[in-house]
């Protein structure tokens, strides 16, 4: 079929599709309420067809990319009676979702009578109900403690809002006004996508668009296979570890990737990964698929369109009941970061033997802190989430890693914001916030640096902190002879007491007035043999104070 579409029409349609998702993203950014959406941009847009094929997506959050087709398929499996003007929602990880905070809205798009596509908006909600504010609950042992579960449901039917459903959803989250605002923004962005797709059908006719889409997907497939074919064939193994699951019982949970590369084809088999956990470090099925797709997307060329075609060269095998694909009912909230990061790292490590020039060294893991307390200047309560002290990125064949940039699953997508604004709005003093020398792994190319943050509390009453994350033991991996980055090291310093090392899954840590946090975030992994690092690069590192122990280390 695709042979009959002329290349100009195909390019015009491709261009249109990517500008449609870009416009949807712009609308979302401008109209959403929550900081997590309008500042941290934790949302994604996509167009899928009725078979759940990913047609186009906007490059926002890589871990959403491969997940949305599964969500579209879940909607298709549950219902068939769609009408123009419908809006559907879901978030449940056991009904096509990734984890509960990621609520997804779907608008069906019709060409006349014929249903063609889904305009899809996924957005991380600032709260989704459940036992803890914001959804991350290290103590949850079942999904019910993590928040409100939404299977595929209709929010609008043929253009008519079901207020009763909306009221029920809004009642179950902590900040219903923001929730309603964000949901309105999501629906608005999806409808904008619908409107622009309808114009595309008007101009070319649905049948031509469909043929163009087939050709676009085929082209991405061809481009991807052409890249993959240049890699070395073979069966390769890689593994990565979670530090622990927070239960106190399990440590060093292994994610194992057996990757078979043959011709233009890559098969990733995660079946040998450790069994599932009783805590929130499990992955849902869709999230596991997305993590594998994310690793693959990082290794092919950045400019290949990320759509169904480019993922056709990738086959995923996994076993239910393992850490990467939990049984229904297990908690999973941490999964978009962990074990996503470890899945990516295991795959990249495996393929480093097949495409060493493409395999980047490890990016860091996520270690969050949220503090709740009273601001003595206003007497009001505050909740503050730490985005500062971004960790380092991995080095690659092309150069050193980025410093203060993020984790495998965010890769420079989270803005940490202004320290001045934070000091104005919260009782905090950022005494020191600079690159952390020596934190990046050594190598021909050095890993990006983490950050040293000394954060002094200016509270006058006891405040409480929660943590959620990984990476105090297992480090961003070095690649092809490069060294690992330094792990995260967070401590709470109180006058007259021993410094307290913070673990990654704690609740209710007491913080006394005048206490300070000594945050040392992790560095990225190094790439290639340190002996090959040039004297000039080492001299620059020393001159800039990025590495304290300078040229004497070369070749040692």
């Amino acid at each position, binding site marked *: 079929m695709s042979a009959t579409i002329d290349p100009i029409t195909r390019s015009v349609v491709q261009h249109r599709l990517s500008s449609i998702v870009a416009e949807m993203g712009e609308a979302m950014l401008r109209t959403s309420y929550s900081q997590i959406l309008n500042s941290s941009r934790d949302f994604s847009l996509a167009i899928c067809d009725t078979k759940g094929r990913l047609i186009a997506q906007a490059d926002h959050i890589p871990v959403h990319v491969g997940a949305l087709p599964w969500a579209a398929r879940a909607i298709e499996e549950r219902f068939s009676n769609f009408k123009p003007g419908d809006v559907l929602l879901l978030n449940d990880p056991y009904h096509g979702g990734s984890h509960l905070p990621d609520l997804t809205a779907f608008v069906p798009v019709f060409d006349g009578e014929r249903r063609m596509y889904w305009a899809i908006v996924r957005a991380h909600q600032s709260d989704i109900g459940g036992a803890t504010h914001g959804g991350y609950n290290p103590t949850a042992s079942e999904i019910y403690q993590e928040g409100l579960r939404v299977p595929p449901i209709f929010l609008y039917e043929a253009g008519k809002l079901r207020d009763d459903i909306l009221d029920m959803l809004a009642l179950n989250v902590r900040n219903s006004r923001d929730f309603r605002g964000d949901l309105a923004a999501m629906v608005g962005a999806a409808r904008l996508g619908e409107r622009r797709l309808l114009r595309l059908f008007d101009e070319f006719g649905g049948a031509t668009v469909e043929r163009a889409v087939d050709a676009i997907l085929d082209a991405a497939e061809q481009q991807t296979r052409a890249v993959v074919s240049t890699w070395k064939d073979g069966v390769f193994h890689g593994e990565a570890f979670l530090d622990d699951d927070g239960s106190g019982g399990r440590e060093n949970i292994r994610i194992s990737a057996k990757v078979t590369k043959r011709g233009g084809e890559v098969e990733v088999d995660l079946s040998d990964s450790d069994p599932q956990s009783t805590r929130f470090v499990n992955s849902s099925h869709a999230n596991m698929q997305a993590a594998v797709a994310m690793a693959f997307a990082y290794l092919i060329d950045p400019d290949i369109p*990320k759509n169904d075609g480019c993922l056709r060269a990738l086959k995923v095998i996994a076993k239910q009941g393992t850490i990467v694909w939990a049984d229904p009912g297990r908690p999973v909230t941490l999964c978009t970061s962990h074990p996503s990061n470890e899945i990516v790292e295991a795959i990249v490590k495996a393929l480093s033997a097949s495409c060493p020039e493409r395999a*980047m060294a490890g990016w860091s893991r996520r270690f969050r802190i949220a503090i709740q307390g009273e601001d003595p200047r206003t007497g009001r309560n505050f909740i503050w989430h730490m985005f500062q002290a971004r960790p380092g990125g991995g080095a690659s064949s092309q150069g050193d890693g980025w410093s203060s940039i993020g984790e495998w699953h965010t890769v*420079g997508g989270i803005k940490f914001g*202004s320290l*001045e604004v934070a*000091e104005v709005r919260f009782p905090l003093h950022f005494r020191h916030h600079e690159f952390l020398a020596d934190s990046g792994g050594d190598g021909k190319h050095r890993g990006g640096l983490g950050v040293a943050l000394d954060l002094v509390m200016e509270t006058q009453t006891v405040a409480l902190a929660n943590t959620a994350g990984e990476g105090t033991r297992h480090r961003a991996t070095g690649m092809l002879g490069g060294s690992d980055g330094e792990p995260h090291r967070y401590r709470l310093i109180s006058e007259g007491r021993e410094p307290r090392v913070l673990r990654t899954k704690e609740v209710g840590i007491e913080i006394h007035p005048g206490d300070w946090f000594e945050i040392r975030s992790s560095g990225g992994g190094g790439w290639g043999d340190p002996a090959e690092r040039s004297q000039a690069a080492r001299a620059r590192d020393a001159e800039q104070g990025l590495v304290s122990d300078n040229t004497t280390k070369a070749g040692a």
Partner: protein
Amino acid sequence: MYTIGVDVGGTYTDLVAIDERGHTIFAKSPSTPADQSIGVMAGLEELARRLGLSRADMLAAATRLVHGTTVATNALLERKGAKVALVTTEGHRDIIEMREGLKDNRYDLRSPPPEPLVPRERRLTVRERIKANGDVLIPLDEVSANEVIAAIRASGAQSVAICFLHAYRNPAHEIAMAERIARELPDVNVSRSSDVLPQILEFERFSTTVVNAYVAPPVRRYLTSLEARLREAGLKSSVFIILSHGGMAPIEEAARLAAGTVLSGPAGGISGCQRCAELLGIPDLVPFDMGGTSTDISLISDGRAALSAAGALAGQRIALRSLDITSIAAGGGSIADVDAGGTFHVGPESAGSVPGPACYGNGGTDVAVTDANVVLGYLDADAFMGGQRPLDRAASDAAMDRLAAKLGLSRDAAAAGVYRMINLKMADGIRLTTLRRGVDPRRFTLLSFGGAAGLHCVEVARELEIKRIVVPTAASVLSAWGMLTSDLRYEVSRTYLDSGKRIQSSEVRALFAELEAQAAGRLRSWFDGPMTIQRSAEMRYGEQIFEIDVPLDGLDMDDPALAARIEERFHCRHEDLYTYASPDQEVVFVNARVAAVGAVTRGNDDVKPAPATAPPQPKSKRKAFFGAWREVPVYAMDRLAPSHTLEGPAIVEAETTTVVLNDGDRARVNELGWLDIRLG
């Protein structure tokens, strides 16, 4: 008596002179990037020749010379600015390199990070700290200040950026440090953040101050030498520089706030568009300025161009307020090709001016957009640049044949495809730019200017469902022409810190009074004509992060309920922009802004040409491709007169621009002599 506008572009320096009767003369002269003043002086020579005067006589008779310069722009783009040292607060050395943790291309995990303008070894820290409320937590430490000065001296830096945390709130430490450096290192340029941009948000303030320190020395050097040449050549009047916000300022001020000149040239174009809106009586325009390598897109709404503080250039954040101009990397030089997956692309690679499109005959073999225009018969190869630079049609054909073979299409179909794709890119750029402001482009009129826009404007408009296009006679020199309509402008802003409280009327009133005194005082030192004051506030709801600029003009500053009035304005503005307001939510007042505006006397620029006495006569006919090859009439723009009407398909040629009309499009020549096109 003349007013003279001079705009230095990448390829050409454009000049415009308007006399007191409103007669307008244009000239173009090649730019001289190594020393722009050479091209400027040569251009003035050419302008004088066209006026039938000597250059000295013309300059002596000038009442004002307004200049748009790209010295700061080029210094940034080519990384040829001054060697800068950054002096900052102890413990916070890496703010400019952290970029708030952001990275652009999400799927490119292999490219290494960009080099910051100031490398880490020249980012020097002083022991000092101001708190969020302006109190001094750690006094400026003498010993470390002296060590830093020694380090600056040792580094050989020619320019210093002083950036301390919370200096927008209390600049005492920055001022003390600046005085010390001026005393110890008198030859070093000093920019301090509390002077350049006294606003909260350290990354934006620091980055802007660093850019300022980086470009100030070359800008000052250039402007000083240009002024000396102009004086020597006989100029008696003032010289003003167009700033990125569209107002103009004397040379010393432009050199002080050199980071505010990075959009000097395009800003002239926007001033020109605002004047067009006025002359046409059309308040809502989309300026479409398509050149060789890039296309500038902006928006005139209600007769005014929006200002924005969200700018960046060459990866450097510049948070000074400037006209909101989006530049997309596509233009006449964009290259068309087919990638490994068989997908057809136009751009972002550009043939530039060397080798340029295949038809330039400089050895370029790739198809550029200009080649498609030649193949399709839209551009007359022999008449390009008024015949001064004929194009090689055979080279365009040969390059197009190679592309057509890869696509499995005929030469004509391939050329039409290139033409279509570039139009689509332009339309996308405009759509995203307008959407970002919550504006639907369909109700706007497209204003087409810049060398290449006329070839594409009807198809770009059609793509956007825009129905009307205007092409002014000054289309190819609109920036230089627009500069002559600019006013003098001095802007100041300051952060208002409420730290959780509601806005207080008395505090806001005092803040504005202080800023007004400062702005008016500064403007008075350059100018003794009529002055107006414009006030605005940047505000947002508590949980939002994007502030919106709320104009406060017409508000009685003595109103006892001033704070409530300001909040009302904000809610209305928010509703205008984003369709809703939340009157029960906390409103945060972030920055106060004041502009002192000095209105200059303007010559007539709306002289109306004589109306037509006979129907328009084509100067020739030629074959051009509109789905099929058609023989179409070609008109000379300078032989058209008001009330002439042209039916598409047709081609209108001026010395430096060509306008293409398609089937059903109809152009009327309005009373200004401009083309007013309605789409079929």
